[in-house]
């Protein structure tokens, strides 16, 4: 017991001091018992955060050994094929920290793998937020901050893998310079100011280094803090279910449950990345050799998150470069790089507000959507993913042609068409699947679960017995609200329905919500049940009739 009291005394002392100096009691009261809902998909953002922390830790280690200089030196390290070659300090020190520093190669590999995981987790996290509608009011701003973070993550990754100054990274820089040169009017000026003169010059390595280890991480860290601050003040969203409402958050307290779970998860993520880095080599810069602008390796590929842009560049036909009046406008480069990035960012930032226009809904939403219950949004999301994946595939068209023994020209021509056709197909198909799943939910809410038990009725008919759902089970299927297309009357309340904006809003709303499946109402269940008691055959007929009424618009339009 005496040890207990010592610990208690110590805790009291520390607590007392923390409260006196930092007002710790208020912080504990406000935060320690904050409730977080539980769901595997909420861990995606955690993976993003943790891999960022791992990047800060391993990156700091790397800076102790890396030499951000393009100055020429003679390689004297242990890698025999490069012995005596003239290489940059940056390249030599990258090799030195890999081969001469204990744990250095592991640190470099952990750093690179975490970077890949960081961007991947960012994008999957964004997809989760998008498909569940977590970007809706009041979280629009946080969605925008997340989008900016994703863009910065890509730039951070690019400046990072440019630093070793190997042949592959130099080729990447060469392409980045061409992207800059293609910017109309000011391109060559930006290029000369960034590179300190002509490409490649000697300035870009120390400059990229400062951008990579100071500028971008500082901005990102600040944005991450704001991002998390918003999570705290909004409280976390939760999936719909019994007992979950727009006015509560159901889950487990930060202290001790989430401290242990989330803290433990950090170590799990770190451990798994260490495992991958121990066993799987990444970016073996010694095999590529030092950067030299005249050689290149076939099958040069950027890190995966740049692949879609590289793919876009590959698909763009050359005739889109225009020369007139003594000036050259390289649309064949400008469109698939700068323009497409700006377009994606604009679409990302605008989306929550666009959907708000379509719904006319200014309320806060803390319950997530099941993706099927927002068919148009889900369709648009899958459309965007399809577009992205096709560009990504195109970024590897040479590898695909090589492995599958196909003509690279055929693959490229196919992708040029597919890039416009397949996303549209994906939109329609996804939307149909969502509507189908909603109908299945209706079916289940009305008649219950299929039991697989077949019963023969006295008059010879076979029916499958359905087990009724409990209130808890049914709630998840019927809890959502359905948006309907805005009518002119709705617009009258909001202002003049005949303004351009009013017309746009009505049209957009129609696009989003014309096809819809309404959730089952108590009256429908009641009707289904009472009919069921009379006659099974009649029950079927009457339900079909009702369903047709409820999903009428989509049937008449697309049936």
């Amino acid at each position, binding site marked *: 017991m005496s040890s207990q009291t010592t610990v208690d005394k110590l805790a009291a002392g520390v607590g007392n001091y923390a409260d006196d100096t930092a007002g710790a009691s208020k912080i504990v009261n406000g935060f320690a*018992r*904050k*409730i977080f809902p539980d769901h595997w998909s909420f861990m995606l953002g955690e993976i993003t955060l943790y891999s960022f922390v791992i990047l800060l830790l391993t990156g700091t280690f790397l800076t102790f050994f890396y030499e951000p200089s393009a100055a020429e030196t003679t390689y004297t390290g*242990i890698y025999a094929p490069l012995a005596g070659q003239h290489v940059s300090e940056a390249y030599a020190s990258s090799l030195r920290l890999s081969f001469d*520093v*204990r*744990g250095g*190669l*592991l640190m470099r*590999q952990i750093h690179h793998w975490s970077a890949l995981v960081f961007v991947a987790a960012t994008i999957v996290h964004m997809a989760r937020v998008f498909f569940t509608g977590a970007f809706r009011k009041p979280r629009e701003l946080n969605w925008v901050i997340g989008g900016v973070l994703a863009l910065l993550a890509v730039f951070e990754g690019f400046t990072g893998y440019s630093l070793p100054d190997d042949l592959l990274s130099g080729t990447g820089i060469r*392409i980045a*310079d*061409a992207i800059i*040169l293609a910017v109309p*009017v000011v391109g*060559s*000026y930006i290029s000369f*100011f960034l590179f*300190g*003169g002509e*490409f490649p010059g000697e300035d870009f390595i120390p400059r990229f280094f400062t951008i990579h280890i100071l500028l971008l991480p500082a901005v990102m860290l600040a944005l991450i803090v704001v991002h998390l601050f918003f999570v705290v003040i909004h409280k976390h969203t939760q999936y719909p279910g*019994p*007992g979950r409402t727009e006015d*509560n958050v*159901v889950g*487990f307290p930060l202290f001790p*449950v*989430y401290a*242990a779970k989330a*803290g*433990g998860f950090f170590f*799990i993520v770190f*451990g*798994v990345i*260490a495992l991958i880095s121990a*066993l799987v080599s990444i970016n073996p810069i010694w095999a590529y050799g030092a950067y030299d*602008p*005249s*050689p290149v*390796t076939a099958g040069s590929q950027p890190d995966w998150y740049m692949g879609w842009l590289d793919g876009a*560049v*590959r698909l763009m036909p*050359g005739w*889109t*470069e225009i020369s007139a009046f*003594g*000036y*050259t*406008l*390289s649309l*064949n*480069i400008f469109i698939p790089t700068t323009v497409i990035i700006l377009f994606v960012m604009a679409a990302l930032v605008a989306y929550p507000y666009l959907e708000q226009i379509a719904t006319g809904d200014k309320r*806060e939403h803390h319950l997530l959507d099941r993706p099927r219950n927002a068919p148009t949004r889900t369709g648009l999301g899958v459309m965007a993913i399809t577009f992205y994946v096709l560009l990504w595939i195109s970024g590897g068209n040479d590898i695909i042609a090589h492995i599958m023994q196909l003509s690279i020209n055929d693959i*490229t021509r196919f992708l040029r068409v597919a890039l416009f056709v397949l996303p549209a197909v994906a939109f329609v198909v996804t939307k149909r699947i969502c509507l189908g799943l909603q109908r299945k939910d209706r079916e289940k809410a009305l008649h219950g679960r299929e039991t697989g038990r077949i019963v023969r009725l006295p008059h010879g008919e076979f029916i499958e017995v359905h087990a009724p759902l409990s*209130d808890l089970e049914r709630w998840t299927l*019927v809890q959502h609200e359905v948006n309907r297309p805005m009518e002119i009357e709705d617009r009258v309340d909001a202002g003049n329905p005949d303004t351009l904006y009013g017309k746009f809003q009505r049209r957009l709303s129609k696009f989003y919500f014309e096809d819809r499946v309404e*959730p089952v*109402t*108590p009256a429908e269940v*009641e009707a289904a049940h009472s009919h069921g008691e009379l006659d099974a055959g009649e029950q079927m007929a009457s339900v079909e009739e009702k369903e047709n009424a409820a999903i009428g618009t989509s049937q008449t339009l697309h049936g």
Partner: protein
Amino acid sequence: MSEIERAGDAHGQGPGTTLARGQGALPDRFENPGLPEHRHRMGDTDPKAARRAERQVAVLLVLSMIGSVLIVVSIIGIKYDDSFERISLSTKAIGLSMFLSLFALGVGAVHWAKTLMPDDERIDYRHRQRGTAAEREQAVAILKEGAAESGLGRRPLIRNTLIGAGVLFPLPAVFFFRDTGPLPGNDLSTTMWKTGTYLTKDPEGGRIRASDLGLGSVVHVMPEGIEDAEELLNEKAKAAVLLIRIEPELLSAPEGREDWSVDGIVAYSKICTHMGCPVALYEQQTHHLLCPCHQSTFDVTQDCKVIFGPAKRALPQLPIQVDAEGYLQAQSGFHEAVGPSFWERG
């Protein structure tokens, strides 16, 4: 705990959880049935199960300790020097020990939380972000009062000059970047190639005799003296040339360029006109040059014009001739800018 309840307390207090059957009109929507009843875990009721979980957590944490010790052992114990087997072994040993140390610690903590910490769900209540009417009114009043005290509304002179100063002060920041680089001038349009510059092999060096080139051969070429260039990589990035010999009758030189080749030997810039990668892949059968970066394809028999891919312009040709001893040299520099396009290129 003021706002946080255990879910069990809230259960059953919600609005009616079942359909009120046969009591007049039905509601339009179902009502939220409230949280399901909490189901206890084994460890909550069975002390044996709880102790088992406790032991499991302890085993995981001990594994983590072993991992941490193994990291130190691997770093100190494995010599890390001249052999790649050693480096590979060391990397694997340190990495796998790290995995053990971190992963076991993480799994231990999560297992502890999942098996032994309370797993009944709690409820916290949300508040709208928007303030109440009173709060909003107070905020507006404060802002109005502050604005009035500042007198900005009454003193347009200060207001306008403040706006002017505010807009102007960040602008000079841009000009601090002036010396990050020189102006482009015509650097992008010039290379080391001049009249009489000898073609040398890249990377081994040495002039090239026209008669030494067999039919179908390809040589990577740099201008003589490039090794002494002040900005070696910058010059290399523009001056790289491919020398190709094909049957003279296959060449189709455009007007005015008939004498730019020597007996079927042609020299073209190796820098892709698309994004500047070296156009390094030559297909002997078809006489096509392929850029490995974005697959732009150039046909040597058609003056290296683009026959596929995202590039627009043909590879610039370097006019060549032979000197008295039969060595290849440039007739002149390139007649246009090499490499990727830029606005002023024309």
